């Protein structure tokens, strides 16, 4: 075995992993704890990590405090899904072209795509607002979907291109010699083999779409019914007080379906990466 570690090294690795996981997961744990306790307990001094009267009360109350909560969660998933689908439609042919074809300014345009990534949406909010207003898209789903797609295409192209480059060129040459067109080869040969890569890119785009929708929602959309969850959570901030426990419960409920999907996809991903080796 090449990768055998000493006990000390193993201890070191596990220690590092633990630190990392605590850093990532502690906020989720605290969210969960906060969602379980009555609101007044959250402001007790000294702060008590453990209390006696934990309950799931907030998980039922939240639907009454914010009646549109279900709608917000649905909107979030809907917007992220639409963004992912549209983005993939643009990414796949573009990434294939960058991986296989030769055209003028190929490297330059690829660099520009990467450059675009350096601007966050925030920098471009005002020009984007004007564009969307001119196009009459403000206060529609499209106001959140179109900018989302635009900002995710560059990363997606970069990710998928490097994956497509790994597919043996001889497979495409064989298809070409047998008379298949580019599009036929893409559909019948390249994409089926790129499924693991497509999932990786799809997941990355979905996460990106889910994370960035807040900014676009609060700037480009005033319609309550269309708001995604991150924007909808603001309704837990009342005139008098903030129902933190319900807000945490709502946030957790909102990400739950996404997490379930990801747990399922993760298995798929590992299976996809190992199956169908091209040749040894």
């Amino acid at each position: 075995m090449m990768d055998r570690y000493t006990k000390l090294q193993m201890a070191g690795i596990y220690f590092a992993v633990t630190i990392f996981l605590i850093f990532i997961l502690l906020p989720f744990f605290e969210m969960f704890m906060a969602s379980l306790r009555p609101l007044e307990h959250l402001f007790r001094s000294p702060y008590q990590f453990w209390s006696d009267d934990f309950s799931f009360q907030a998980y039922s109350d939240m639907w009454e405090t914010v009646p549109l909560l279900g709608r917000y969660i649905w909107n979030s998933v809907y917007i992220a899904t639409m963004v992912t689908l549209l983005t993939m439609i643009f990414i796949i042919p573009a990434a294939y072209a960058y991986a296989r074809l030769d055209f003028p300014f190929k490297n330059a345009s690829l660099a520009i795509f990467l450059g675009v990534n350096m601007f966050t949406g925030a920098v471009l909010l005002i020009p984007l607002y004007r564009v969307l207003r001119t196009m009459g898209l403000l206060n529609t789903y499209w106001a959140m979907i179109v900018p989302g797609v635009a900002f995710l295409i560059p990363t997606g192209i970069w990710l998928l291109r490097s994956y497509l480059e790994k597919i043996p060129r001889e497979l495409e040459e064989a298809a070409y010699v047998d008379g298949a067109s580019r599009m036929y080869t893409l559909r019948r040969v390249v994409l089926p083999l790129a499924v693991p890569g497509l999932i990786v890119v799809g997941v990355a785009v979905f996460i990106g779409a889910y994370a960035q929708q807040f900014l676009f929602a609060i700037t480009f959309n005033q319609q309550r019914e269309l708001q995604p969850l991150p924007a909808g959570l603001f309704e837990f901030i009342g005139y008098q007080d903030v129902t933190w426990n319900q807000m945490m419960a709502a946030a957790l409920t909102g990400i739950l379906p996404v997490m379930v999907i990801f747990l399922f996809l993760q298995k798929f991903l590992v299976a996809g990466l190992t199956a169908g080796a091209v040749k040894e």
Partner: protein
Amino acid sequence: MATLDLLSINKSFGAAKVLHDISLAIEDKEFVVFVGPSGCGKSTLLRIIAGLEETTSGQIMIDGKDVSDAHPVDRGISMVFQSYALYPHLTVYENIAFPLRVQKMPQPEMDAAVNRAAEILQLTDKLQLKPGQLSGGQRQRVAIGRSIVRNPKVFLFDEPLSNLDAALRGDMRVELSQLHRSLEATMVYVTHDQVEAMTMADRIVVLNAGRVEQFGTPMELYHHPKTKFVASFIGQPNMNLLPAKVLGSDAKSLKVELDGGHQMVVPVEAGLVSKGDNVEVGIRPEHVSLGDSGLSVTVNVLERLGGVSITYGAVGNGTRFCASLPGDAAIREGTPVTLAVNPDDCHVFDANGDVLSRQAAPELAG
């Protein structure tokens, strides 16, 4: 049913010129092998015939029709790739049927065509498997199946056996030769292995540095190599090349003194070579025998293969010399032996590496 003619093919990649003015006429139903060391341009030439690469200049004619700008399918060629290039996500059936699906052939016809190909290649019970479940030889057959299913005029093979182990390679050589005979098709085969070239080819094209060194039948190349390169490339083990000095010449022979002092009269046309010139004498390892007079060779390594014993040694000033002797020849490593050489079997190359025409070599039948 096709002839294949290459007319003055040139190919450059940027400033690097990889093919120089290649012209070949390949006849109908011929099995032609392109052979040469890595980087000699043989694969590039095959890809040009396939239509995967464009020529810088020159024409490709199939059946007398200029196909230089035609799509591979319109040229009527099919190709088997070195890595097989099977689609790992498709079954054997779908892999073989791929060219027919592209043509949108109706299902019953396609079934018949795929089954016929599978029968020829003994893949009938493997049709529903994926390439990953097959052995190397079976994958190779699937790749061949995909190329025969649409009845091309010319088959192209790009080092198809190089990924197989030695035993399987021998079997596949025989299968390919049989396939060639049963399909009666024109085949062009690229390899760097001269054994494959010698065993399968009707005619061999020896390529070196983007140029055709010689185009001829295997035995023609063996007995009448035109250049030192061809002579040393064809034949196993390689031909020995001994530096020699010309002592004298007449119309039909050349008297030379080999490195090490052995003198002999070789029956070749002297041409422009005259007394005092440096030449090289080529002696095939299988054309020497143990004798009382001849070359004195120190044996360094002895390989006993059973039927034959191969010795590696040195003559004269350390020129390497290999000899193929009977299996139980009484020789030992580290001792000198005397090897008899028949001058009729020798080749002589001038300073440019060009051969001097042999007078005593076997006549070639057809």
